[in-house]
């Protein structure tokens, strides 16, 4: 049943990439438990605006857990306490009146902070640009049913393809690795036959870009899988490692 709660928020504020940041504390009253987390932040921002203060800058867009724009570390957990839930899908019924909630950006070496909770995740785009595609131009492709793909493969590929590129995996990894993100895309395209011709080169290029961006290495902490809002499995990392190994050993 819906109720209203009072909260203390400790939010990271930072003017821009060149400034130091710090936590600021805000009190919010009468927050409906039916509200989503970001609707709660909207309420805070309206309050701050009416007080003549600078609202909290944060990335968000679809508010339905699919675009990957939103994300913050809430009480130490990327996207907050609910499993397989993005920040925008987290609802205030997961909190109690009197709670203090600590909200920080997705921090990582490869994700510079631009302002408050807003970070630069373009490194993830560059990893995809390095090989997260099938090299096929528009037009002249074969009929969609020419290459049968079994349901099990199709489901695994869809599981991997479900990654929304939010970066929660990077933010929660103690090493700041992007293995789950990269592994998911490499997996999708190595499972599907359309990705086979380029699979070796893809694995090499994407991993090389990942390293170049300053992401860390994987030491099997599994924090990434635990916070992934789409439930992407670390088996995708294992699959990427196999693809990478094969490409090094068998060459091309």
């Amino acid at each position, binding site marked *: 049943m819906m109720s209203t709660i009072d909260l203390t928020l400790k939010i990271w504020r930072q003017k821009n990439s060149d400034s130091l940041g710090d936590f600021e504390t805000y009190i919010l009253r009468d927050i409906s438990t039916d509200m989503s987390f*970001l*609707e709660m932040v*909207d309420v805070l921002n*309206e309050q701050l605006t*009416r007080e*003549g203060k*600078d*609202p909290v*800058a944060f990335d*968000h*867009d*679809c*508010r*339905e*857990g699919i*675009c*990957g*724009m939103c994300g913050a570390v809430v009480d130490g957990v990327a996207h907050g306490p*609910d499993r397989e839930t993005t920040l925008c*899908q*987290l*609802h205030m*019924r997961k909190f109690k009146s009197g709670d203090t909630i600590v909200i920080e950006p997705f921090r990582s070496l490869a994700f510079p902070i*631009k302002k408050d909770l*807003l970070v*630069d995740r*373009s490194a*993830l*785009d560059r990893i*995809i*640009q*390095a090989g*997260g*595609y*099938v*090299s*096929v131009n*528009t*037009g002249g*492709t*074969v*009929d*969609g*049913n020419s*290459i*049968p793909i*079994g*349901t099990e493969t*199709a489901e695994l*590929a*869809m599981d991997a*393809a*479900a990654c*929304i*590129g939010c970066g929660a995996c990077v933010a929660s990894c103690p090493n700041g690795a992007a293995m789950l993100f990269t592994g998911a895309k490499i997996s*999708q*395209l190595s499972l*599907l036959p*359309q*990705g086979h011709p380029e699979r070796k080169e893809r694995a090499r290029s994407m991993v090389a870009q990942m390293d170049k961006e300053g992401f860390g290495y994987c030491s099997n902490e599994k924090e990434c899988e635990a916070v992934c809002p789409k439930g992407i499995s670390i088996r995708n990392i294992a699959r990427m490692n196999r693809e990478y190994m094969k490409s090094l050993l068998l060459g091309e």
Partner: protein
Amino acid sequence: MELNSRIPSGPLAEKWDSHRFESKLVNPANRRKFRVIVVGTGLAGASAAATLSELGYKVDAFCLHDSPRRAHSIAAQGGINAAKNYQNDGDSVFRLFYDTIKGGDFRAREANVYRLAQVSTEIIDQCVAQGVPFAREYGGTLANRSFGGAQVSRTFYARGQTGQQLLLGAYSALSRQINSGGVTMYNRREMMDVVVVDGKARGIVVRNMITGEIESYGADAVLLCTGGYGNAYFLSTNAMASNVTAAWRACKRGAAFANPSFVQIHPTCIPVHGDYQSKLTLMSESLRNDGRVWVPKNKDDKRPASQIPEEDRDYYLENKYPSFGNLVPRDVASRNAKEQCDLGKGVGSTGLAVYLDFGDAIKRDGADVILRKYGNLFQMYEKITDSDPMVEPMMIYPAVHYTMGGLWVDYNLMTTIPGLFALGECNFSDHGANRLGASALMQGLADGYFVISTSIGQYFGAETISPVNTSDPAFKEVENEVDDRLQKLLQNSSDGPQGKVTVDDVHKELGRLLWDNCGMARNRQELEQALEELPKIKDKFWSSVYVPGAADDLNQSIEKAGRVADFLEFGEFMIRDALAREESCGCHLREESQTEESEALRDDDNYSHVSVWEYKGDDQAPEMHKESLVFENVTPSQRSYK
């Protein structure tokens, strides 16, 4: 204003092929001499940018997010139509064309819609080739499901995340072009205006959303792929940043706007739960494949759903429309839901909801099958409402979802500004007065992958494009105007927020006015009232809106303010259009024009046209022109889904 649709002559089924032959080409070695700007990198923009770059053109692509993969195309759930007839149930290009034209209530151009149906099959092939993980049958072939407004199973899907997977396919093609250098990608840039030189679109002026800098970019052609304007209603299924700014600015520079009042209200969305609500969440139409829509027969029956037996339930869609049942097109489903709630039979705490019940489907097919089809959608629903559709029926209510109206374009997708093209949801072209489910994805990709390349070739081949770059004074002039507008947004803010309103305050007021007076059911009195109220809301905005921060910084408040300012102006076009069209068709229901069964009653004698609005100035009413619609291949009939 001259409207030449440039529909090719000849039999319907040959128009596109003959057009491609007749259209000029640009020699591969010459293509690199041309630069194209693409604004918006959703399905239409990403596919267009990738395709044009593959062909050899130089492309500059812009999006307002941190990455092209964030476009709201990503949220589309249910699927994409194509006339493959893999299910052997009677589908064909002509049938898809017919279903779409009929679904649009005979207010779309035959030639455009036929072409859409024709290239639909190539879209599926392209996506499969890119590694889009469509659902498969056990034998390995592509799976299909049914969608509203059709009696064949022609929708291809990837779980309940088809939009995401199609967008990621286009994004991957775009990424490959960015890597090869063919496309230069500019993220976090909001288009503020179009630059027209000697009557041709020659570039854009954008605001860098991180630094606040105003930047000019020149090109030989500009493609707007900027989506729909549902957020004029404040609450819609659109993403928070979705806006009308790019299209509206183009309109003010001379690009006519067609059918602005044609707004689709999707029947199955999660009902509003509070004042602070930021958007409405769509529950895919695919759910209507298996879910049954009902309300209690008796309006005073307030028992929980599980306690209401079959005989006390009114499965109103099944009863009223036996042959289409729950799969009637969206406008029909939405209006019926509204009717039931107006009669007092609505459910939930607000009474503004109806049930979508999976009980029978679960009994028939088993929980596993239902979960496999809809698992992620049920999960999304449960996160928001704390209720599990496997246990109790979903509650749904109509919400603004898609805009059939958009920039007027000819057969080449060019607007009334030469060199300015509009693709995807931001153009008006293919869906008439009502879009069928699973066709928006189809249209965005049709425009971007398969249509624009011919149009660009024709434009560059036929016109002499003189060299123009950003040093042309026209650019500086527009930059100054953009800067002035930004400063004007801050004009009330230097002395603090006391006694002022916030941007959201005004946006909500505008949204309420449009929803109440220009929503699912419209009438002259309320529309005229809206025309009187709108200027008052606009005045309130310009005289007392408080916008914190500065323009030359990362400032999300000024971003919102600019978009709302444009919605306030654009709203007038929507209301005037609804007033001028004194018939009902598709999504546009004028209460004064209904059949005895409360269905939309068209007036083909007087309204078989596209209403095309020309901006005449800030203090003048826009001027309406008409593009006559001629139907040679279908006979407009009263739509019946009984």
